[in-house]
């Protein structure tokens, strides 16, 4: 009798356990967004959450955990329970924050699901600026150290690092131009409009209104290939500077999340990001699409982590 009871219990337990896996998700899933409500990353997170909800039939709730230059949200995402019910909208900062001493967290603290976006940095100046191309500009900066002011966002953010990396590739010291830190791309656009700085580096779509109205001209984008939405803007590589740089976003889960769940999430997300709705959404928001699978995304983060280590050291941001 006892044996039967034990066997019965085991059987029930196994059924529940297997049913548990088969039915992921069986309750709501939290999507942690490390950036504020209404910003670019938040918009992407909310789009993905809505689509995941449709695909899985369980609520996917976006929670904004902001602060610490991304450290708070990424930390919350990495240290959450690794049961598949906490996913994080990972951003580039996971590869830079720990070098700057903002957190102990590294890219190794996550398991990777999928990369869904990449936005290259661009070099933009006012239309009345004397420079014809990016070479012109960089030669001028080299010849007149300390004369020109660059901006794009805060110190040590991706748009600053993009500039430092570009300078390094052509042998210009980091301090040959002054970096004017701002709270983001939009305030630096105001600075450039008002003539308070000379050059900005940020993603092209962020300044699309000014480029299209002819107030700004884009000298280059820091990507491997031209952006189909701005076919006239050459890449740095075309102009002989071997440097690509930009921000990226993807989906990750805490380290140790069951493989089956990661796989299921990857397959569902992959379906979403290859859909027309996603393309349309990203296009309207001015975001670029770049998809890497779990393994490629992990390797990409690993490679980025080393790139930024070097650039952060150059900029004097590394701790």
């Amino acid at each position, binding site marked *: 009798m006892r044996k039967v009871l034990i066997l019965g219990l085991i059987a029930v337990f196994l059924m529940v356990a297997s049913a548990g896996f088969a039915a992921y998700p069986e309750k709501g899933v939290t999507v942690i967004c490390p950036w504020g409500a209404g910003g670019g990353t938040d918009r992407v997170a909310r789009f993905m959450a809505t689509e995941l909800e449709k695909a899985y039939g369980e609520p996917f709730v976006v929670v904004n955990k902001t602060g610490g230059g991304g*450290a*708070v949200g990424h930390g919350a995402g990495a240290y959450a329970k690794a049961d598949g019910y906490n996913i994080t909208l990972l951003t580039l900062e996971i590869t830079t924050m720990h070098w700057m*001493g903002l957190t102990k967290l590294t890219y190794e603290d996550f398991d990777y699901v999928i990369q869904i976006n990449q936005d290259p940095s661009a070099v933009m100046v006012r239309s009345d600026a004397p420079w014809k191309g990016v070479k012109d500009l960089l030669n001028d900066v080299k010849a007149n150290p300390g004369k020109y002011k660059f901006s794009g966002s805060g*110190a040590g953010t991706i748009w600053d690092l993009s500039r430092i990396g570009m300078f390094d590739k052509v042998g210009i010291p980091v301090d040959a131009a002054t970096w004017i830190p701002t709270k983001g791309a939009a305030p630096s656009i105001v600075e450039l409009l*008002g003539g308070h700085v000379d050059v900005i580096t940020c993603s092209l779509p962020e300044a699309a*209104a000014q480029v*299209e109205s002819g107030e700004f001209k884009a000298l280059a984008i820091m990507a491997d290939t031209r952006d189909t939405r701005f076919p006239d803007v050459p890449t740095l590589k075309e102009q002989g500077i071997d440097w690509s740089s930009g921000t990226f976003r993807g989906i990750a889960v805490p380290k140790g999340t069951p493989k089956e769940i990661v796989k299921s999430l990857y397959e569902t997300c992959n379906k979403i990001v290859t859909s027309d709705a996603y393309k349309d959404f990203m296009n309207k928001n001015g975001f670029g699409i770049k998809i890497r699978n779990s393994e490629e995304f992990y390797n990409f983060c690993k490679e980025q982590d080393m790139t930024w280590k070097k650039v952060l050291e150059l900029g004097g941001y590394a701790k």
Partner: protein
Amino acid sequence: MTILTIFQLKILVPWILSMGFGILVGGTPGLTATMAVALIVPISYYLDPLAGLAMILGVSFTSIFTGDIPATFLRIPGTPASGAAVLDGYELTKQGKGSLALTIDLFCSVMGGLIGVLILILIAPPLARFALKFSSFQYFWLGVFGLSMSSVLSSGNMTRGLVSALLGLLVSTVGIDITTGYPRFAFGCTELMGGIGFIPAMVGLFGISEVLKNVRSKERLLATSIEDKLKVSASETFGIIFKRKWTLIRAALIGTCVGALPGAGADIAAWVAYGLEKKTSSHPEKFGKGCFEGVIAPTSANNAALGGTWIPALVFGVPGDSITAIVLGAMMMYGLRPGPLIFQQNADLVKGIFMIALFSQLFLIPVGLIGIKIYGTILKLPRNIIMVIVLVFSIVGSFAIRNSLFDIYIMIAFGVVGYSFEKIRIPLPPMILGIILGPMIEDNLRVGLIKTAGSFIPFLTDPISMSLITLIIFTFFGSRIGGIFKLLFQNNDQDG
């Protein structure tokens, strides 16, 4: 595009619904207008662009007004822009005039909003061009000017006010410094790296300190429920406003201009308007004790500032505050490009936005009155229950802003600070000003110095800076300068 376009059902229904949502958001501390707009944007993608924009405009104007409701009734600002509304509004509630104060507040919000929108419609491009002239140097002085209001707000004792303001500045330095990316006063604590949240601090300083005060009170709280006249007569309301029409107009103009600057928003506008009104008043001693100017000035200014924030957004495609930052993202989703070309390429849409903004003000009257009625029932409860409600609101609000438990501790800590400060008669508003303006002053000073390679001269020579400096000198020493002139003239007379 005719006026009827915006009165189609597909626009009108979401518009009115979003205004109802605004009552809820504004009335709940910790839920900000920015958050409301962020929540509405994903819904609005399924709608007509004008319907989406109507929802955004509706919810933002409504929640900036309704933020004043808990500020007036419970001493907890519902949104950051309502910080200044606490001062005289809550005093009036204690005198049993809470509903009257809010009705005045509502009509001033409407008038202020109208003035802001009219300025947006009539002179947006030149005002936006002017706002572009503001860079680090000018923002620095604007921040200092705002801070000089603390001397006005500290009712009598300037030293105590200064202590409070400086502590506020100190609090504002916690967290990652944007100029160098270096964490300060964070002690390795990730939560502190994001800085001390302004909303938890403000909710603690005003709300929790009031709860603590009541806990210490020797009277039985049950017996001390406030007798509030919920019926407010229109003639009394308009009489009070009409007598102070210049206060309203001045505050609305200040609000619009501050709003139009991409680096300052409705919260700063409200404080500056309040401070200036007190400074120029013939009876400054009545401020903070429940005077109507103290209600009219900040509330006209914060709603006017909303119109102002749309000026750089539409003219240059650069956000005037966090709400318009989200709006710009939403407009791109609709396939629109805010910026210099929108007036030509989407003239109809711009006209639609203007009309919706104007009519939102009119709709705000009934919606706001309903809001006052709903929240007014709270006042019928006995004090001991109201204080529990304040506590719950404070906790939920502090948590909601960043979904962070840590912010609740911050809020409680500031509650204790607020209570102790009021005990030793250190005024709280200067501290709030310090927390709001600290980053603006510090970042712009340091970034300005980076721009000038360490020289202070450009901070002094620019015409806008010089006007701001003059204003600051007059705020601090106005009365003494007047005295010196008087003295000089008297001497001359004696010599002659």
